């Protein structure tokens, strides 16, 4: 069972409440595809990913970034049971999408960096710690049903 302090809970809820999904989602996913190009392997049918400019203006990437970010809403609403909440999504990523779970961490790091850029100095060390704890649990839960 994960223990959350009041600070951690309110920090996560606040970050997601204030977040502009249409901005952060595309920024995080496109950054991941640029910085870690091997992650492009999962997006073979997304069209032009030939260079950074193409990736960053790709509409399918942008849309998918928003989808992935909204996928985290479930975790935010069920912080006390992320593991169970994500059981189905984990099976999806393993059995259907065949995503190497290591990639979850790469996207998580890019998301952290995008949020840091948006929040500036408000993204204090304590806020970063809370956000990374949340991401670590999301990532672990997504990888749980792999076998």
């Amino acid at each position: 069972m994960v223990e959350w302090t009041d600070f951690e809970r309110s920090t996560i809820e606040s970050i997601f409440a204030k977040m502009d999904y249409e901005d952060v989602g595309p920024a995080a996913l496109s950054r991941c595809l640029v910085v870690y190009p091997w992650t492009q392997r999962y997006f073979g049918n997304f069209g032009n990913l030939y260079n950074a400019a193409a990736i960053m203006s790709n509409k399918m990437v942008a849309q998918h970034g928003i989808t992935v970010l909204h996928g985290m809403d479930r975790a935010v609403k069920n912080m006390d049971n992320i593991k169970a909440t994500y059981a189905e999504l984990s099976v999806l990523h393993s059995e259907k999408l065949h995503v190497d779970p290591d990639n979850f961490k790469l996207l998580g790091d890019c998301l952290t960096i995008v949020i840091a850029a948006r929040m500036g100095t408000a993204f204090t060390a304590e806020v970063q710690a809370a956000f990374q704890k949340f991401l670590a649990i999301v990532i672990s839960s997504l990888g749980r049903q792999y076998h």
Partner: protein
Amino acid sequence: MTLSAKDKAAVKGFMSKMKSRSEEIGAETLSRMLVVYPQTKSYFAHWPDLAPGSAPVREHGVIFINGVYEAADKIDDLKNGLLTLSELHAFMLRVDPVNFKIFIHCMLVVLAMLFPEDFTPQVHLAVDKFLAQVALALAEKYR
């Protein structure tokens, strides 16, 4: 994952922007690392004060950042250029290399915070590649 000419140019270009806020970057990166990854405090148990923004943390942050600038100057041959620093880390400090990645991550977060417009995905890629090479060069003499 060798650095291309484009990567090197991007790194040098961004480093020149960093120089105006070196102390801030160094202090913030180190402070942050000690808070977000408390296990890293084990290397600084001999400091009187590990609080974010404390004097030892700020001074040492500058030392770290200057190390990064030194590496950027030797970007064409990091392995040989950083031999002395590698010996220091391998034989004296004996920092587990896994912490290099942790430090790098914290530095990237700080760079994104302080330079939201300039730390584009392309710059992020070049800086990440560069710092990974620096970490490798630092680990050279470990075994």
